[in-house]
């Protein structure tokens, strides 16, 4: 697993409201995913659906370290990142339903969430394909003096493709403010990390480009936040790119089509012992930040948010057929 031992809530320097908000976001992501999985089974959602269960602490901790004018760019397993960035779960669910009210007007689906107004620059489904884009966004930030940091999220599987190495090299060379965040959940589809990567400690791949790199416990939301705060400060201060490897695990299959024949149930159970939501709840309770009533209320609120999202998605209209011919060129 690596990483440091769990950060004490009390030492995090965060107020109660912020801490509870982290838990709220993680719960919301988990419930959204569970509901999406259920709706997929019922045929309400189609295409590829990649759920984020188990990895919630990575998104919530890391994205909490950003300023509103910073950017997030991520891979196709993007629901958690979008939610943590504050995209409206109603419009996310509508996107999964392929409705006109979805964040990408129903054109993108699960893998392609996007909300330019919130600095959420996608949801990209070609593995590794968005890393060069992050470099370009960093270039624009420097050039236009936007003082913007780009958080670029991808999986362990995405660190074996040429784009990854090309992007790290150029990011360092051009000194762009990009925080590369690898969600190492130990598998790319059904292929275990050690079967696909000659180096098992992914952060070491960044070290060869002299990019500061570290491994973080991705099941610990506060550790994720702390590491990302440091990385963002480095990038914003003109230090160039930074690399984080979050050790995490996806509790469900790669996608809804995955029979999960490649890993032991016992391995999954072991990781579930480190469920980031349960771990954080325990710590908040132990240190007296969370009461049973708080939790009950939070459960209720997040249930309602998801239920409202489903209702909104159900009731939203399909995109009009005229949409087919729109948005292809800026100046047709």
């Amino acid at each position, binding site marked *: 697993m690596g990483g440091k031992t769990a950060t004490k809530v009390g030492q995090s320097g965060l107020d109660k409201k912020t801490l509870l908000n982290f838990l709220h976001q993680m719960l919301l992501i988990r419930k959204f995913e569970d509901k999406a999985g259920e709706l997929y089974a019922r045929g309400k959602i*189609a*295409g*590829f659906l990649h759920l984020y269960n188990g990895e919630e602490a990575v998104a919530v901790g890391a994205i909490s370290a950003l300023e509103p004018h910073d950017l997030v760019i991520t891979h196709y397993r993007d629901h958690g990142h979008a939610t943590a960035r504050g995209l409206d779960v109603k419009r996310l669910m509508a996107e999964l339903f*392929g*409705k006109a009210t979805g964040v*990408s007007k*129903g*054109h*993108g*689906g699960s*893998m*392609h969430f996007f909300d330019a107004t919130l600095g959420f620059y996608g949801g990209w*489904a*070609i*593995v*590794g394909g968005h890393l060069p884009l992050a470099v370009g966004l960093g270039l624009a930030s420097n050039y236009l003096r936007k003082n913007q940091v780009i958080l670029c999220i991808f999986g362990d*599987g*995405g660190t*074996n*493709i*040429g784009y990854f190495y090309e992007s790290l090299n150029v990011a360092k060379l051009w000194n762009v403010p990009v925080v590369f965040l690898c969600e190492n959940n130990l598998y*790319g*589809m*059904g*292929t275990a990390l050690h*079967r*696909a*990567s000659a180096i098992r400690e992914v952060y070491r791949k960044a070290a060869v480009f002299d990019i500061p790199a570290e491994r973080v416990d991705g099941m610990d939301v506060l550790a994720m936040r702390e590491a990302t705060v440091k990385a963002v400060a480095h990038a914003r201060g003109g230090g160039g790119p930074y690399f984080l490897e979050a050790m995490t695990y996806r509790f469900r299959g790669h996608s809804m089509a*995955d029979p999960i*024949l*490649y890993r032991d149930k016992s391995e999954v159970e072991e990781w579930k012992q480190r469920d980031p939501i349960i771990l954080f709840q325990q710590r908040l309770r132990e240190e007296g930040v969370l009461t049973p009533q708080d939790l009950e209320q939070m459960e209720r609120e997040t249930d309602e948010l998801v239920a409202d999202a489903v209702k909104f998605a159900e009731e939203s209209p*399909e*995109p009009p*057929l005229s*949409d*087919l*011919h729109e948005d*292809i060129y800026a100046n047709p």
Partner: protein
Amino acid sequence: MPMITYREALHHALREEMTRDERVLIFGEDVVAYGGAYGVTSGLAKDYGEKRVFDAPIAEGVIAGAAVGAAMGGLRPVAELMTINFALLAADQIINHAAKVMHMFGGQMSVPLVMRAVGGGGAQLASTHSQSLESMFAHVPGLKVVTPATPADGKGLLKSAIRDDDPVLFIEHALLYRVRGEVPEGEHLVALGKAEVKREGKDITLVAYSRMTLVALQAADLLSQEGIEAEVVDLRSLRPLDMETVLASVRKTHRALTVEEAWRSYGIGAEIASRIQEEAFDDLDAPIRRVSGVEVPLPYAKNLEQAAIPDAQRIMKAVKEVLARTGG
């Protein structure tokens, strides 16, 4: 003859060719535990060992390039690129290397390799995962491009592709894996570059390939109920292209309609139409028409996606328009 699925037919072809020739090996993304994104290689690693069936990282450039190198080194690799959309990441190796080795080095060496990739839309995978990019690759001399529509052709073409001494891009269709059909057991070869008349008719020739062959056949059945007999030619291979079969059919029906899922501009239909008019202009009673995918990045929403992919209704409408031009 046993009725099996397209997936099983492809699986049998791989199994038989691996048994026949020790130099055949399979590598690519998720071919072992996952059995390939669509299950085609399922069980092969267990039966033939991981020396012959093994996973590669998500690194299409090296998968394709290593296949070229392995072929130069004396092997007959079957590389799995997962989908045609990801073949774009390997396009340099496919186009600049695989397709060039033979001619550029004066015929000293060929590269006997197969790259398998899934193409096509219809599964709501959105625009980067639903493309029909075959014409981009069929454009390139030195490559062979094969697009089977039926289980029997899948098996026969894959076996031939593996035995072929040239690089073959073998494009399967995402919606065909569960389609069943009669497939001969054991040695069943379909020659590369041979089209097939899948249905006879006298009124018009529908030229299709891959899944659109099945849609054209469906349209032909419906048209038949209205007294219109369409002949359906399945190209099966896009390069080499069997114009003989197409021209023979057009000389009989005097009308042609091309059907493709891919975008219309610069496409397969454009090529076929052009060749027909070059070689059989005098046999035509009406202008050739094309039914193609609507020219948009394929959206996720079901209603939009369905509207963008040709179906039997659109084919029927176009057939009637062609016939109307001749008063037929």
